[in-house]
């Protein structure tokens, strides 16, 4: 039972991350590869707060989000001046730099990370069981989903898609392309950081490996497999891609190669979907990846 609760929590966390990145990739056409870094900033801020200051959940969410916003400002300001490949490479650069900070700073505990993180408290009630954490993760995913739905259906959502399709036209209408991109970047960062808060409190121990370049590529894979520009697709992809490797546990695959096989599977899915099905499982905008 504990096992299924854990898997469910992971799916909810990845659904949140995937939706938040899909707003950039699918709706706005910004292929950012720094999402894991911002997720990590949320996770580390939460862990440091819980260890040294407070384990209050709402304070954790608030400060993790603020830190996420600040870091994404640093990432976005220079990167958003660049296009396509160069945007991707600039965000990859920031991903590497932030990962290096997690790995090498004294305060983040280096390669071994931070552990012994206390349970969070919500209005004075301490959340102890993993089932309660699961409910919390699902709640965050639902809030993220509903807000993303609202944004993408609002006039602002049409602006995002317009930026994706033709920036020059949007600029010609007197809208600031930079401001539109910037706003969605910040929104995306808030949820990535909040997912980090949930992750830290669920695992009670974090290390840098969970927030590296591989992780960013994995979240991009989830967006593409689910379908760029499809929120339902993002949720579906998170569920399928987390569950699929778990099936290895039930068939006879040696423990030594199971983690490798999992990565190979993710790599194959990324190649398959970029090659044969660029709209993803249930995406509708075939043209995002053109």
């Amino acid at each position: 039972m504990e096992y299924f609760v854990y898997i469910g929590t992971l799916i909810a966390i990845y659904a949140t991350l995937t939706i938040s990145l899909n707003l950039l990739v699918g709706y706005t056409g910004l292929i950012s590869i720094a999402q894991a870094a911002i997720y990590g900033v949320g996770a580390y801020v939460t862990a440091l707060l819980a260890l040294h200051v407070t384990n209050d959940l709402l304070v954790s969410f608030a400060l993790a989000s603020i830190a996420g916003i600040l870091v994404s400002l640093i990432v976005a300001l220079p990167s958003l001046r660049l296009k396509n490949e160069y945007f991707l490479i600039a965000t990859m650069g920031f991903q590497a730099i932030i990962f290096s900070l997690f790995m090498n700073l004294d305060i983040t505990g280096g390669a071994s990370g931070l552990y012994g993180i206390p349970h969070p408290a919500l209005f004075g009630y301490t959340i102890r069981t993993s089932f309660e954490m699961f409910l919390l993760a699902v709640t965050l995913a639902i809030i993220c989903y509903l807000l993303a739905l609202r944004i993408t259906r609002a006039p602002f959502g049409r602006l995002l898609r317009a930026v994706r399709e033709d920036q020059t036209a949007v600029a010609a209408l007197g809208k600031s392309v930079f401001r539109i991109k910037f706003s969605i970047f910040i929104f995306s960062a808030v949820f990535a950081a909040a997912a980090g808060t949930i992750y830290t409190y669920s695992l009670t121990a974090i290390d840098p490996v969970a927030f590296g370049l591989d992780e960013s590529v994995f979240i991009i894979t989830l967006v593409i497999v689910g379908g760029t520009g499809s929120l339902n697709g993002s949720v579906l992809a998170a569920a399928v891609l987390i569950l699929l490797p778990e099936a290895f546990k039930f068939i006879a695959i040696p423990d030594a190669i199971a983690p490798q096989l999992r990565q190979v599977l993710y790599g194959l899915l990324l190649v398959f979907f970029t090659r044969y099905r660029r709209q993803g499982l249930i995406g509708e905008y075939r043209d995002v990846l053109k």
Partner: protein
Amino acid sequence: MSVLAQFAVNGIVAGSVYALIALGFALIFTASRVFHFAHGGVYTFSAFAGYTALVTLKLGIVAGFLAAIIVAALIGLIINILLYEPMKAGGVSPFVAMISSFGVLIIITHVTAMIWGSNPVVLSPGGQTTVYHFGSIYTTDAQLLIIGFAAVLAIALWIFFRHMRLGIAIRAMGNDSELAEVVGMPARRLRNISFIVGSGLVGISAMLIGLNVGIIDFNMGMDIILMATVAMIIGGLGNVGAAAGGGFVLGMIQNIAIWKIESKWQMALSFAILIVVLLFKPSGLFGEKRPATGL
């Protein structure tokens, strides 16, 4: 003073290593406009192929290099034929191929770990490299080979792409593949040849670098392809000679920085340089004055 000189020598070696990887990477980029990240996977896999020939089967050093070169060239060619060419033919931009390439990098890296295990293996047991002393500075024959090979290749490829008809034609094809076909260039074949040559070069580099370091492991292609990307961009995109120059500059900066900055910050420093170059000199240090970025 001699400490600084040793750092400079280390910088030249590291710079030549990056230049070697960046050369093949840039050659492929010039011909196909794809950021072929899977190049890092080809690097890793070919080193292990060389290891099998050299250490496991004890076929000798020439066979080791041949195995690495052939395996690398084959994988590069297969990736182009099965993935990039169909994507190009389907009107998909090289940008999407770049994302796909990440997938291929992940696949090759972990298949390597499944075949040869996830622990490092010894490619050159002690005593195979000779150490030379120049005063207080030391270097090895593998290092001298790396420096020489990188320099010769960089100059040869620079002359090829600047002054020879075929080289100039390949650059033109990179800019506009359709136009190249209209004027009668066998674009597909030229791209295939570029993948064979670029990948074959990474096979040689993998063996040279593996022999110099002594050990190889399945993850080594990840970091090196990131450094090659940094090298190619700080040197100047679409220009093979400039990429080699970028690699050289990167290696020098990293190693001279060790004087003041701990080595654990090398990766962060390299990417900080990358971002500064992207923002302030997007055409690169040695590239043409044609901005590759916009908005």
